């Protein structure tokens, strides 16, 4: 039997300022391939479908089990992780493109630093360090911990930002991921002590008010995080915070 072939098209870009171009590859099909293993073939044989020698395709990946978020790319029009995308479930030729919301570094490698900047902006951590031993923090009910665990699955992969119509080069909207992370850390008994700081950050320009409720984020999130519930919950919280700020409550801090 003749060797079964697999065709895929990669949208390539040589450097951040270069024009993108398509390159078609034809590789030997193996059972149970994922997109990473498909891309690895271009490292072994950097030759296009019409026999032209080319450079291996560049991409990012780490964990290979859909928890790190590094290998997000647009596969057949859908933003998802290359590691958990199985070839047998895809139509051929497979089209692989970098996510369009982020600046392209090279080929499928994009710069997601805006997401990490957003996490810094909303203080997506729990401050536990002091100049002296602060002692044990308050306990978290197990039921709440299980609930919060769902929010903590966010891997900053960027798929929600890619699908959001309001995250683009014309807007400074922070995007769904950071909004949900602010909710996660505000629900932690120790993180709650800095609740108002996170809410204030969400009320800055480019913050939560940039959401237009298209709700694409919750549809595409690979981890099934209830992003739109988080956004609505933070809408409520920021509104209350803004009333507290304006009317001068002692509870504004």
């Amino acid at each position, binding site marked *: 039997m003749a060797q079964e072939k697999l065709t895929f098209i990669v949208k390539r870009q040589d450097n951040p300022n270069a024009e993108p171009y398509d390159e078609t590859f034809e590789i030997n099909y193996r059972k149970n391939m994922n997109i990473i293993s498909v891309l690895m073939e271009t490292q072994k044989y950097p030759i296009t479908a019409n026999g032209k020698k080319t450079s291996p395709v560049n991409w990012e990946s780490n964990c290979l089990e859909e928890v790190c978020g590094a290998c997000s790319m647009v596969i057949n*029009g859908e933003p998802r992780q290359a590691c958990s995308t199985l070839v047998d479930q895809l139509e051929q030729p497979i089209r692989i493109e970098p996510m369009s919301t982020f600046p392209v570094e090279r080929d499928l490698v994009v710069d997601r630093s805006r997401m990490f900047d957003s996490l810094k902006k909303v203080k997506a951590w729990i401050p536990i360090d002091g100049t002296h031993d602060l002692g044990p923090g308050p306990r978290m009910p197990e039921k709440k911990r299980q609930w919060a665990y769902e929010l903590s699955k966010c891997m900053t992969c960027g798929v929600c930002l890619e*699908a959001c*119509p*309001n995250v*683009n080069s*014309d*807007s400074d909207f922070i995007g769904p991921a950071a909004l949900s992370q602010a909710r996660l850390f505000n629900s932690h008994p120790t993180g709650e002590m800095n609740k108002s700081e996170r809410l204030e950050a969400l*009320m*800055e*320009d*480019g*913050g*939560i*008010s*940039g*959401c*237009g*409720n*298209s*709700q*694409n984020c919750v*549809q*595409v999130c690979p981890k099934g995080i*209830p992003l*739109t*519930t988080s*956004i*609505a*919950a*933070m*809408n*409520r*919280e*920021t*509104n*209350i915070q*803004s009333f507290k700020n304006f009317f001068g409550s002692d509870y504004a801090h």
Partner: protein
Amino acid sequence: MENREFFYRRLHSLLGVVPIGIFLIQHLFVNHFAVYGPESFNKAASFMHDLPFRILLEIFIIFLPILFHAVLGVYIVFVAKNNVTRYGYFRNWMFFLQRITGIVTLVFIVWHVWETRVQIGLGTEELDYSLMETILASPVMFAFYVLGIISTTFHFANGLWSFLVSWGITVTPRSQKMATYATILIFLAVTYLGIRALFAFV
């Protein structure tokens, strides 16, 4: 000014419902008097016309809120990069249609205010049944009014849905789903009110 976006966007959301949404419903209710005949309509229209401090009511309840809503709204339309072809989910379509109907409604309102309120203000037209009868006698204008009303009522009903989310009233997916059904009913009811009144003029 820095960091005013949150306030402006919340104000935009609020104004769309109070007072603009309330005014829309009131307006369509008054129009509906046309169904009971020209005299009934004229009586209702002159009652509204003779309200005390009418100019102030018009400026603060109608003109200024709509002006603010329209200016910020057009900005909101232009920052979005619509992607319904790639993500054809129901809410994404509503997001897209909210922006389309926003623009259609703005064009409709400008046209409608020009040929009614402005002309009456200039003294070239009288506020009565026959003014609308003349306008709607043209099939093109009639179609434009049907489109304008449906666009406005859709924008109102769907805007009410996102108002509930923006103000953190409907947070859970279930409450948001219920709100979807409720706003569909509101859309149908308000559209019926508006379109039925239109047909009373022909």
